[in-house]
């Protein structure tokens, strides 16, 4: 995993807000992301987990090119992307509240990002892809529906289909389920993981919800106060949270750099995140 040939490579990323854009006399500068190194290998789903305000969304937006980096770099494999505008990065982004275009129906929302010509793909290609995408997210036949008539869960499925339609080399998901109620969230998170794997998408999934992170991701990174403090497989992370802060955030039984029952790679209780329901396997004291 140390060698990333094809995948996201973030080095020393710093994002600041309220910076001296007006001439540098503004003193209220907050550093949202403070020197983060991050690799996501091709085909991998990595969850960024952290409490609200820890900078995970800022990091995601910086990777998408929506937030300028004050320092550091973003690259895909060997291709530097720091100065590349958002629309040429080939990354998809799914927002917390979908951000569907209200003046376009479901089909035309999904088709928006399909390339081919400068302004879109030829019609038959487009229609076929839209149909396939809507099938993938379980909304076959919804092409003509107005997005305003969709329920919250349906809207997020359409947003997912729209993000996946152009086959982005990296899909960034910004708390995609947190605006939904809990029942729906628990249902959708397993589905979402399955869709991502079916599509073989490389994904960076930002969330503040442990269950979601452990369910959907191959690896989980924990962010606290702008720093990426630990990246590990879910079971390894639980077994060895590395710092008291991480342990406290994860709600593990005893805060400490060496948890009381571990040495191996996490044991057999938590073998992976792909089984639906594994979200409930989090150990409780």
């Amino acid at each position: 995993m140390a060698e990333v040939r094809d995948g996201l490579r973030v080095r020393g990323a710093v994002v600041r807000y309220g910076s001296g854009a007006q001439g540098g006399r503004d003193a209220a500068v907050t550093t949202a992301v403070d020197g983060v190194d991050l690799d996501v290998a091709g085909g991998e789903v990595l969850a960024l987990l952290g409490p609200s305000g820890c900078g995970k969304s800022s990091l995601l937006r910086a990777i998408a090119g929506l937030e300028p980096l004050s320092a550091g770099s973003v690259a895909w494999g060997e291709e530097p992307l720091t100065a590349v505008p958002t629309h040429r990065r080939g990354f998809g982004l799914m927002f917390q509240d979908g951000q569907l275009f209200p003046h376009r129906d479901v089909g035309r929302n999904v088709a928006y990002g399909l390339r081919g010509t400068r302004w879109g793909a030829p019609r038959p290609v487009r229609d076929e892809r839209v149909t396939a995408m809507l099938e993938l997210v379980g909304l076959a036949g919804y092409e003509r529906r107005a997005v305003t008539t969709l329920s919250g869960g349906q809207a997020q499925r359409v947003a997912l289909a729209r993000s996946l339609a152009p086959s982005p080399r990296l899909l960034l998901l910004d708390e995609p389920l947190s605006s939904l109620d809990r029942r729906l969230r628990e249902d959708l998170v397993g589905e979402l993981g399955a869709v991502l794997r079916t599509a073989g998408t490389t994904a960076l999934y930002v969330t503040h919800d442990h269950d979601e992170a452990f369910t959907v991701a191959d690896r989980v990174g924990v962010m606290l106060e702008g720093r990426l403090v630990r990246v590990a497989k879910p079971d390894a992370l639980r077994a060895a949270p590395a710092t008291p802060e991480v342990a406290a955030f994860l709600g593990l039984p005893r805060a400490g750099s060496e948890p009381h029952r571990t040495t191996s790679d996490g044991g057999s209780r938590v073998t992976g995140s792909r089984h639906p329901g594994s979200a409930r396997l989090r150990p409780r004291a």
Partner: protein
Amino acid sequence: MMPLAFLGLFFAYPVATLVGRGFVTDGALDLGGFAEVLGAPRTWRVVWHTLSQAALGTVIAVVLGVPGAYVLYRRTFPGRRVVRALVAVPFVLPSVVVGVAFRALLAPSGPLGFLGLDRTFPAIVAALVFFNYGLVVRMVGTVWERLDPRTEQAARALGASPLRAALTVTLPALVPAIASAAALVFLFCATAFALVLVLGGSRYATVEVEIWLQTTQFLDLRTASVLSVVQLVVVGLALVVSGRARRGRERALALVESSRATAPLRLVRRDGQAASPLDVGAAAVTAAVVALVALPLATMLVRSLRHDGAWTLRHYANLATTGDRALTVSVWEATANSLRIAVDATVIAVVIGMTLALVLSRRPASRTGRRALGALDAVVMLPLGVSAVTVGFGFLIALDRPPLDLRSSLVLVPIAQAMVAIPLVVRAVLPVLRAIDPRLRQAAATLGAGAGRVLLTVDGPLVLRSLGLAVGFAFAVSLGEFGATSFLSRPDRPTLPVVIFRLLGRPGDGNYGMALAASVVLAVMVGAVMTTAERLRPLGSGEV
């Protein structure tokens, strides 16, 4: 019921009389007047001027205003507040003043005299754009600054270039706001009176100007009545379109706090971020327009301070005189008249407007109740569209004989001005009232407050906050009102705009200089009133 009776007496009755005058001769229905007037090529020329000036003025104001809205509301830069204030100035300026400023700029001796545009069609259109640019910027900008930027970002993340994202995502979201602004601007352009009168005279007369000419110059009241009906049709159509646009506006937009949606203007490469071509283009257009907005005002100010090639205050000193055989009273006396009338008109407009707004803010449970309220809403907004000239002319022919003879009465001018100001008062207060959560009233009721007490303790204090704005609007409108006043003011008690117009019509360098100085005085007064009112504006209220 009281405000409705007032509206009926001082709006519906005069307008109906006016319309009747066009249809009825000697007690019998007679469409001969229509046939005659509508058969005259002069009429169609006038209608064509009205529509083409308004359409062209609207299109240019919108095309220039949308980039302006982007730069001044979506982007931040040092000095933004100052530029926004500057852009808002022309809209509150009395149209007589705008006319004078453009004449000063374009006259053969003015800084742009070499263009030869004085008293031409382009000059009128330019003045209309000048007048309404700020309105477009404000109406579009206040929606744009709260538009959720993530919708556009979603498009960018899907591979859309900044231009494609702007055209396919942002623009459709703004269309209702733009349409709404365009309809209103068209309305103002189509009813522009003093501006066209000062800049175009009879050569480029619009329907409004023609009504005035027919009434005051040719004393042909029948033709004027028919033309008023024509004007009512034009305005009615514009209002219908505007209403449609406003309804479309209610489509749910993803709105956020403006602080989250704005970003610094990117004109040069900085912090590793390239300059944005969209920003550069929009900023260039806006800078040019702002310079053009400042130019006539600066010219007017400079020329009011010059005489025979030297700096002087003599034009201002002359304001204490009646000019060179031009006036019956001194300009300062006229100013005092204006202020006195404005106080009266403001009191009337605020009392009636507030009452109407209270009624309009109710949400009746029954369907007929809602219908009636919708109708009332339209009726109240009518004076905004029915031009001041029509109001003034209607007063002139309806209220000059029994049962009501008010022509020589001093109350006529304030009432006419109040009619023009009422829609603005309603528009300033109504959003505040509508924004009051009905549950607040319900909470008061469950605590044992009767209807009267709820009004007094819940609605009252909240509305008071918008009162400043309403008073400011009414006062400024009344001070600058010319259309209706020009029909109604008595020769011995002219108002400041009337005096300015009269000074312009008299020969002599001294009179012209006085007109400029008086315009500056009027502009400063209106500006001061509006600035104070803006300070009192409660957050997120009022559109105009």
